[in-house]
């Protein structure tokens, strides 16, 4: 096991950032730390890197107790949200930094820098200054710089958070492919559930300084351990006292199945290929349902039509907590 966090706690004054957190991160995988802002995920990443020290608990990297090691002795690569480029150095010099610190020969440094710049598609920008690069290019350079020292683990703190949506999506796909090429144990922090579901092998959901659930994207989506996880990973609606995803509700114009919940269609909204309907049940609940446009047409879905709702077979459901 590559990274072992045991009973780590951290407070900033009165604010508890991490409360007795234990996580094991497997070697060679891409793991996402997912959660809302202020939930403690960045703090956990910085504790793994040694940029922040834990108040209590242990951090192990590749079987070595790293709790008291300074960052430079942990052999981790760290990528910052705002790139943290060395502004006074060229792109090539930025990437070479870690190697020069390690007193590698000039030829070796040059060769490795060239190789890495090729990997991140920045070969033609080697002699530029960082200020001449776009945000996405800077972050790729920062990634190459972190990879140059051949870290045992690569840590990324909201790496695409400062980029616009399109570049973000491109880099996300690219990171996934890069990880398949260079399978270094990677942990990245994100508050974007789509990013985590798309890129990660494993997701650790962190909220309020605690780990809510650990699992593969499928496990988390299909078998959420709590209300919070279910709500954070996708849309949720409530049908007969259970939380369920709107696309997991079957809607029909005839009372087919036993136990189906009858109701009236309140609103219908079409967004591209899908149709979102709000149904008022006879118990007075407003339930959201998502279905395809063809399905909606087939059952003649429109406002004030009477419909029957049933949870789809095998749908992820979580009993709703207190009424609300």
């Amino acid at each position, binding site marked *: 096991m590559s990274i072992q966090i045991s009973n780590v706690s951290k407070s900033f004054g009165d604010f508890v950032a991490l409360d007795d957190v234990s996580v094991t991160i497997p070697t060679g995988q891409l793991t996402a730390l997912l959660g809302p802002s202020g939930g403690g995920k960045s703090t956990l990443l910085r504790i793994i890197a040694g940029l922040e020290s834990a108040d209590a608990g242990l951090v192990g990297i590749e079987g070595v107790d790293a709790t008291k090691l300074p960052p*430079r002795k942990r052999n981790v690569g760290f990528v910052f949200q*705002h790139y943290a480029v060395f502004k*006074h150095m060229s792109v090539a010099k930025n990437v070479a*930094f870690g190697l020069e*610190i390690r007193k590698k020969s000039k030829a070796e440094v040059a060769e490795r820098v060239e190789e890495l710049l090729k990997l991140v598609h920045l070969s033609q920008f080697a002699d530029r200054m960082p200020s001449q690069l776009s945000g996405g290019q800077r972050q790729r350079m920062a990634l190459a*710089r972190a990879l140059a020292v051949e870290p045992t683990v690569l840590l990324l703190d909201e790496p695409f958070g400062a980029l616009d949506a399109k570049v973000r999506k491109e880099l996300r796909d690219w990171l996934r492919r890069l990880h398949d090429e260079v399978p270094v144990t990677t942990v990245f922090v994100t508050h974007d559930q789509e990013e985590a579901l798309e890129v990660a092998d494993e997701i650790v959901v962190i909220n309020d300084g605690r780990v809510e659930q650990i699992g593969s994207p499928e496990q988390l989506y299909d078998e959420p351990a709590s209300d919070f996880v279910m709500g954070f990973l996708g849309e949720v609606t409530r049908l007969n006292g259970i939380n369920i995803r709107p696309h997991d509700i079957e809607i029909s114009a005839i009372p087919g199945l036993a136990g189906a919940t009858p109701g009236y269609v309140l609103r219908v909204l079409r967004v591209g290929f899908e149709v979102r309907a709000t149904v008022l049940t006879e118990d007075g609940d407003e339930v959201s349902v998502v279905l395809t446009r063809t399905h909606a047409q087939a059952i003649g879905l429109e406002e004030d039509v009477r419909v029957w709702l049933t949870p789809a077979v095998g749908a992820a459901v979580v009993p709703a907590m207190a009424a609300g």
Partner: protein
Amino acid sequence: MVDVATPVKWLLRLVAVGYVFFLVAWPVSFIVVETFADGLATLTDTLGDPSVQGALLLTAEVAFWAVVINLAFGVTISILLVRYEFPGKRVLSALIDVPLSVSPVVVGLALLLVYNGRTGWFGPTLESAGYQVIFSTPGMIMATCFVALPLVIREVVPVLAEVGDDQEQAARSLGANARQTFLRITLPSIKWAVVYGVVLSLARSLGEFGAVKIVSGNFTGVTQTATLVVEQKYQNFEQEAAYATSFILAAASVLCIVVVSLLRPKESA
């Protein structure tokens, strides 16, 4: 830009230029005029005077050490103030501004009280160990350091705060130790602030008068700096020598500023 009517614009310019001209440019130009009234004769005569030569050398020595010491302490204190939290930080920050608000004469007197060899609080101890501070070069360097103390710090602190510590953290995560991080990352990013701080300190140190006059004892040819020579010559009715020495002091300061402004555009281009 604020849109201002043309006559107002011209009036504002006239006021600004006139103010600087009557306060700075005109008086200083008279020093130059007086110095070269007899061609180069005044300048060469003055430079041939051993008491002036000694004073210029002493000024250079005192200014050099004051700048070196202020540079080392200034950068260290700046990093301490910006990067670390500790009790008493605000008090330290406020203390650094004291030399700006206290008259240099008071500074000189304060140093005299602590370090003089006969009745000072600390002076006799030092003197019995063989160090004379007051009426000697160390005291003059201390007085000059004191008055120039905030100049490096007030230049470096805002730049250091603006740069942030992201780059330093990145360097540390890439394996750099504290010394390597400082030399390769921190220093290059505050380079220009440091240069400006040094130039300002140098100019201030060259021109220091009040504090140095008190702690030096003003012994001709021994502890007399260039500014003290200017005063003495002027009072002894050797106006030409006073003007020529003033000219040299002013020229040195102007040279500093010119050199910096010549160097700087290359950096940003």
